[in-house]
């Protein structure tokens, strides 16, 4: 369904800050796969998502989604079929607008943003029921501006907004990292439910190894712009947290740390 082929990416070429991250990077994700991606800081996880959404251009290679070549397509056009929750909790919501306004604007994705009433009053109870699942009390704060929510609350709201209209591909970038352990589990559980109910092909980046093992159908580990582990099915089922940690350590030793 999604395929990145022969991706090359060098940041700041020709400057002292030059950094080559990807040389001939390849990744294929099948329909209805739920990929959990782990990897050290700076290994290129967020950059992969940026390459898919068009946030950064590639030097070489192609990005295909369902046989359509996205490589040259503008970022906002790609968004028609792709939804994303960012690593930065403030990136997925509009701070100056209320929860209700944010949910209404997200609900309208794929339709025209014309001169009709912005707030979707008919869907108010539906929105409240969605928020209720989070257990954060947000359902009673529909008219609160989002800038007064905590980072974790915003991130949870961003997840609901991103999946309000069903995308073909969902990209999650450490979307539970800003949450406390309990909320993190609630949101992860909710993510799993949404992904299964709506049959969304998903690529989830996480530093939470437990989540990476418990959820999803395939695990990928990144290191310095390369895939160092890619497992699914029964092999994946046998992998424990210790096995992941062992690979992590081996990589670090190879690097001489």
């Amino acid at each position, binding site marked *: 369904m999604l395929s990145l082929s022969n991706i090359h990416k060098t940041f700041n070429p020709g400057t002292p800050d030059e950094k080559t991250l990807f040389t001939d990077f390849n990744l294929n994700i099948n329909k209805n796969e739920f990929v959990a991606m782990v990897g050290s800081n700076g290994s290129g996880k967020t950059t992969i998502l940026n390459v898919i959404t068009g946030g950064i251009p590639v030097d070489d290679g192609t990005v295909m989604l369902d046989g359509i070549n996205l490589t040259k397509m503008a970022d*906002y056009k790609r968004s028609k079929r792709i939804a994303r929750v960012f690593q930065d909790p*403030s990136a997925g919501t509009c701070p100056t607008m209320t929860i209700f306004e944010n949910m209404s604007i997200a609900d309208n994705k794929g339709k025209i943003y014309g001169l009709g009433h912005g*707030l979707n009053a008919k869907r108010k109870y539906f929105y409240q029921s969605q928020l209720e699942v989070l257990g954060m009390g947000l359902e009673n704060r529909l008219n609160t501006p989002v800038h007064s929510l905590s980072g974790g609350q915003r991130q949870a709201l961003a997840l609901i907004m991103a999946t309000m209209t069903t995308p073909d591909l969902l990209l999650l970038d450490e979307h539970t990292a800003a949450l406390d352990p309990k909320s993190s589990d609630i949101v992860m559980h909710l993510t799993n439910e949404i992904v299964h109910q709506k049959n969304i092909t998903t690529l989830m980046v996480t530093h939470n190894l437990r989540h990476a093992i418990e959820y999803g159908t395939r695990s990928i580990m990144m290191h310095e712009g390369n895939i160092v582990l890619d497992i699914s099915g029964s092999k994946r089922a046998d992998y424990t947290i210790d096995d992941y940690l062992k690979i992590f350590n081996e990589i670090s030793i190879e690097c001489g740390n």
Partner: protein
Amino acid sequence: MLSIIIGILEQGFIFGIMALGVYISYSILDFPDLSVDGTFPLGAAVSAAMITAGVNPWLALLLSVIAGGIAGAITGILNVKLKITDLLSGILMMTALYSVNYRIAGSPNIFFMGEKTIFTSFSQFIPKLPDVYSRLILIVLIAIAAKLALDWYLKTKSGFLLRSVGSNEGLVITLAQNPGRVKIIGLAVANALVALAGAVNCQRFTQFDVSSGVGTIVMGLAAVIIGTTVFKKVKFLRVTTGVFFGMIIYKTCITIAINSGLNASDMNLVITVLFVLTLVLNTFINKNKKAKGAAANAVIK
């Protein structure tokens, strides 16, 4: 005295319409749009040229608004499509408009006393009322209409996009909408309002002056800052109402300064000094708020 007060109110409401435009570009879009200094006289030039050519003054007003909208859209295109910085796009537009306004008007100034304007047409409806009052009423009505239209627009789906593009462009992208397009629309609406103010001002005084736009943006910003900080405390007041109060306060200060013996040519200096005072007041109020916030937090802890 009464005529001075009426003069201040007239100016406050006319320039308040302009400040609504600045509120869109500066506060909502986070775009410091200097083309305002050119689109205010653009509205005036179009109105003056049309009226002296015998066009219906209401139609002239509408054409002024459209001209302002087009100019604003071009500023947006310079920034979005040609990747010129926001500040420079506005400066370029302002500079170009000086020549354009001259062309439209055909001369650096036009006087058209005695021609039909929206004010003469309006006073026919209420012939018993003295002109001073009917003029003020019409200005206030136009100001209210502009404010309500903007309030309504900001609550539409398109308005929601406008509000999000200024504070989080990335969200607009994830909603599969072109943020550049939203910005261009926003700047068009903003400058349409500014040109409306310029047109009303020109029809009120039945004259056009090619250099009448100097200092417009500074006044607009001052009103927006007063409107958003000073009147933020008053919960039930919208910012779109606050900017009118801001402009009336600002115009009052200018009037006092000018009447205390300064020349009309000192106006720009007065405008600037007052603006600096506004900024100082603004940081002072915000600092106080932070101090209070910290105190409140300490209590909670």
